[in-house]
């Protein structure tokens, strides 16, 4: 089968690669680019562990082919962490026990980050609805909702 050459801006760096069309984005990131912060859970769009950003929006990394991301800007938890843009969110997760095994955490953080950007005054119910696409099998979600709600509140206060 053919391979296709693709280019993308990955965590701020222009890269070129040869990929098989069937390879999905998270396999490309983990296997070919050694970025293992995005996790592969169900590989059918149910669990949200593979959440990454493509062209500024969160997507399921297992439901996008690497070739579909040709020409796009791709950001993973590695890039987001390095940027420091959500340091407060990461600190809150740590401080408030919003992670235990950590498997869902990178996806959960990226999903929460888009909520912070698009619905800065979200209620706890809206937070729960928003993260309903990300499974966590350890925490029971309460601490995750606490951490996100805390950051939303802190960011609102900082604006005043």
């Amino acid at each position: 089968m053919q391979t296709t050459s693709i280019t993308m801006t990955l965590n701020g760096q222009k890269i070129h690669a040869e990929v098989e069309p069937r390879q999905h984005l998270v396999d490309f990131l983990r296997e070919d680019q050694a970025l293992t912060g995005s996790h592969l859970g169900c590989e059918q769009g149910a669990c949200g562990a593979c959440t990454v950003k493509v062209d500024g929006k969160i997507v399921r990394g297992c439901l996008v082919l690497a070739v579909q991301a040709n020409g796009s800007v791709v950001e993973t938890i590695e890039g987001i962490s390095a940027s420091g843009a959500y340091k407060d969110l990461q600190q809150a997760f740590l401080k408030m026990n919003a992670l235990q095994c950590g498997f869902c955490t990178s996806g959960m953080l990226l999903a929460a980050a888009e909520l912070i950007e698009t619905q800065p005054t979200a209620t706890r119910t809206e937070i729960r609805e928003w993260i309903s696409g990300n499974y966590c099998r350890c925490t029971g979600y309460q601490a995750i909702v606490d951490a996100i709600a805390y950051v939303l509140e802190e960011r609102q206060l900082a604006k005043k």
Partner: protein
Amino acid sequence: MKAAAFNYQRVHSIQEALALLANHGDNAKLIAGGQSLLPSLNMRLSNPEILIDLQGVAELKGISFEGGIVRIGAMTTHTEIQNSKIIQEQLPLLTEAVPHIAHRAIRNLGTWGGSCVLGDPAAEWPACAVALDAVMVIAGPKGQRKVAAKDFFLDLYTTALEADEILVASEFTITSAKRVHYFEELSRRHGDYAVTGLVCSMQLEQNKITQSRVVYFSVASIPLLAQGLQKVLDNQSISDLANPSLIAQAQHSVQAEIQTLSDLTNSAEMKKHLLGVLLERAMKKLAS
């Protein structure tokens, strides 16, 4: 699991996509947002030789409002529909329905057209298209044709779209009449497949209901318009919808009219019961 190998081509016009479809026949598969296709590829339920990616086709994208017609391009994403001012003002039922479609990361890529063409019985857009009497615009080798949404969805995952055709857009006629709507979906987890859903759109003429369209989804193989119920509700005054005897009559009508089918976890009997539950909630809400 991993998808079996396939070739991939990104196209930039409808003509280019149609030519590839004509060339490859059943071995080709169009990919829109891919949010249902990728799981089926990963699980090897689908095994195309070539994927034709429509994301670069500008003429399939965007929302417009001209000459009393709202047009939603097939490649418009769920999130774009949610954020659209035109949709909020002219078709608020759709704005209200969006949050029920899967989850944000999926709504960012999944499209109007992809959802309609798949014809999943649990999907929101086919039901909304039928409730709002949308017209599906289809391009094929012989040119364009239009099909009413109520004639588009034929059976489980089966639509009026032929193998060599592409859904281009859906069109909605907007009149000056006052409209009211209701949307409700029951699911086990927010964003999961609907157990049962109800979409309703009706016109009001001085508080009298006309052209009431109640559509159920995830109860049978396609979204079902309750035609008998239309006769019960039309010409009633909107405030009478809370009247217990009218509610009972309406529930009896849909439960007699709509043949529910079971799914993997929910029996046909339970779905029949839920037809009435959702209808009562809708009628009480619309009356208030």
